[in-house]
């Protein structure tokens, strides 16, 4: 979707596109996503539900890639932080009657606060240690959500008010699509600034970055906080879409799902995960519903995909696309 290294294009439409971080192909993709729930067969409720799910994972993978692909820290507690946002929003909605539309933002704030703390603690540690620490935070959070039954009702599940009083999934789809777009634009615009360069420098070589005057502490915290804030924000949507929260949503395996999409899509691309999430979630759901006699097959496929991508194509779909299509585009 984005144009990163192409030569500046002359004004007009393409200049505008450049500013909003979309290539023509990306824009077409977005247009398709906007009309998709209106055209058969995608206007069936269960397919719209898949679409919502795909857009949700897509948005999470963009926020995840913002940390993993740029400062090279795998936030292994990502979904736990997303869950924190979800629980915050849901609990406030239940206890104080706060509107879910506001609650989503409170979720973002709490998640950001935790992200700030984790960033502060992990800033001295090398990638894998930071990942472990974030993971331990995630495990602790999930443990808390399970055990603080008076607040979260634990495994029984917490009912949260829904965003719309309708059984249709279509309005939810447009909300999450807008959130996906916002997540993408915010992260993309940020990495296009000087800050983005600093993130990449830190991700590649912390010491080199430090000696060239980049303050890794500051940028790591900024990056981590923002990524967590987005996760919490999306978590708020989760709460008010599904209407029920269980600690399971914070499980490491959920993070792994997001991670797989982000990496198969292409690390450091932001858009790769977002693009790949749609066919991916649909394929997974198809496998799951049509081969229900073989439980877990869809997960085996995605595990294998992750392994194959890591071994043979570590740049993921984004690299593949850039190599085979981007050139043609530039030439044309």
């Amino acid at each position, binding site marked *: 979707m984005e144009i990163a290294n192409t030569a500046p294009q002359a004004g007009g439409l393409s200049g505008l596109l450049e500013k909003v971080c979309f290539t023509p192909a990306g824009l077409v993709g977005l247009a398709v996503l906007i009309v998709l729930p209106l055209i058969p067969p995608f206007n069936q409720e269960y397919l719209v539900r898949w679409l919502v799910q795909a857009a949700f994972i897509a948005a999470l993978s963009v926020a995840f890639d913002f940390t993993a692909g740029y400062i090279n820290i795998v936030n292994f507690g990502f979904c736990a932080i997303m869950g924190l946002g979800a629980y915050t929003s849901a609990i406030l909605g239940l206890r104080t009657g706060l509107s879910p539309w506001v609650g989503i933002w409170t979720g973002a704030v709490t998640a950001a606060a935790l992200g700030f703390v984790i960033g502060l603690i992990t800033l001295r540690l090398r990638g894998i240690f930071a990942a472990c620490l974030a993971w331990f935070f995630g495990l602790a959070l999930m443990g808390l959500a399970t*055990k603080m039954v008076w607040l979260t009702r634990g495994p029984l599940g917490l009912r949260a008010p829904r965003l719309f009083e309708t059984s249709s999934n279509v309005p939810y789809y447009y909300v999450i699509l807008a959130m996906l777009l916002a997540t993408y634009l915010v992260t993309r615009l940020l990495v296009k600034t000087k800050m983005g360069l600093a993130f990449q420098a830190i991700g590649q070589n912390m010491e080199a970055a430090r000696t060239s005057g980049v303050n890794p502490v500051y940028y790591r915290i900024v990056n981590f906080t923002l990524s967590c804030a987005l996760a919490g924000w999306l978590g708020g949507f989760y709460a008010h879409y599904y209407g029920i929260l269980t600690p399971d949503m914070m499980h490491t395996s959920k993070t792994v799902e997001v991670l797989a999409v982000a990496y198969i899509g292409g690390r450091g691309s932001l858009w790769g995960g977002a693009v790949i999430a749609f066919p991916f979630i649909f394929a997974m759901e198809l496998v799951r519903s049509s081969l229900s006699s073989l439980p*877990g097959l869809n997960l085996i496929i995605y595990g294998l995909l992750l392994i194959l991508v890591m071994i043979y194509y570590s740049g993921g779909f984004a690299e593949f696309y850039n190599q085979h299509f981007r050139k043609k585009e530039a030439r044309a």
Partner: protein
Amino acid sequence: MSNNPTVSAVEWFKSAAGLTISLAVIAALAATIDRGPYILVNTVVTGGMLSLVAMGLALVFGVMNIPMFAHGEYFMIGTLVAYYVFTPMNGYIDQHTGTLAAALLPLVAIIVAGLAGGVMGVLTEKLVFSNLRKRSRENWVMNSFLLTVGLSVVLINLHQLIFGTEFKGIVGYWRGAPLSIMDVFISRDRCMAFVLAAVMVTAFWLFMTYTRTGRAIRAVSQDETGALIVGIDLNGILLLTMSMSCALAAFAGASLLFMYPSYPSVGLEPLYMAWFVVILAGLGNVLGAVVGAFIVALLKVLTVEYIGSGWEFVVPSVLIIIILIFKPSGIFGSEVRGILDK
């Protein structure tokens, strides 16, 4: 360096390792006096087995530089193999309780499971990691970590696909009345689990210290190029390391089958715990992992005892996070260079 034993003992007590160990021992004793000796017994049994899993994890990181996220799945493979080997023997053992065969057959099941884990380790290295190593060593730690994440998903779901999600457990390996130690009755299985863990840890330590191959493994973990220069077959050592560490995990899983029935994600809890241990002790520090295992086991037992079950992930992880803030390389220090970004 001081040659005065008193001074060095005081120094040791003031070090992070000394402080933590002393505190752990005091806490264990206090809890034992408060609640009874079963605290100590539980800690020792859990810690023994945990040390096998954690040792393997530390080894794989120290030698191969792989932060293994799929280690619990080899524990799961151990439980699975032991279940399928042991269940057919059950009838025979029931009829022949008290015979030598009844005492030895469970061992056969556990050893077969350990070997199966070793074979799986070989397959993993050959099919997965050696391919990655051939293609790129850039950003190795992160890439291999993500590989193990994929591996974990595949193995868990293969189990579900082939063997289903139901609990495949056994009542116990060894029949007979529980043994009484320090006025606590402990089932024979628990006793044996501890004995087996102790034997394995000792054997492993002897192997690493006194054999040519063991020294070669340590050499690779300290300097890969140095190891190549002196003529050590690097790929062979990596293969052996992976196989050994998976075998240890499977062995632990098999020995604990009576507590952890086999199901797809049975490996997650030992994995979390082993990671706690390894981070606490210092990544790659294999002997530290043994001590760390007992400390984490104690933390778990104390948490369950005083705060309630379900908190055993919360309290240890919070404590470990706090320790990491002050001592990022773990309490025993890491053998791996550059934990902090230099």
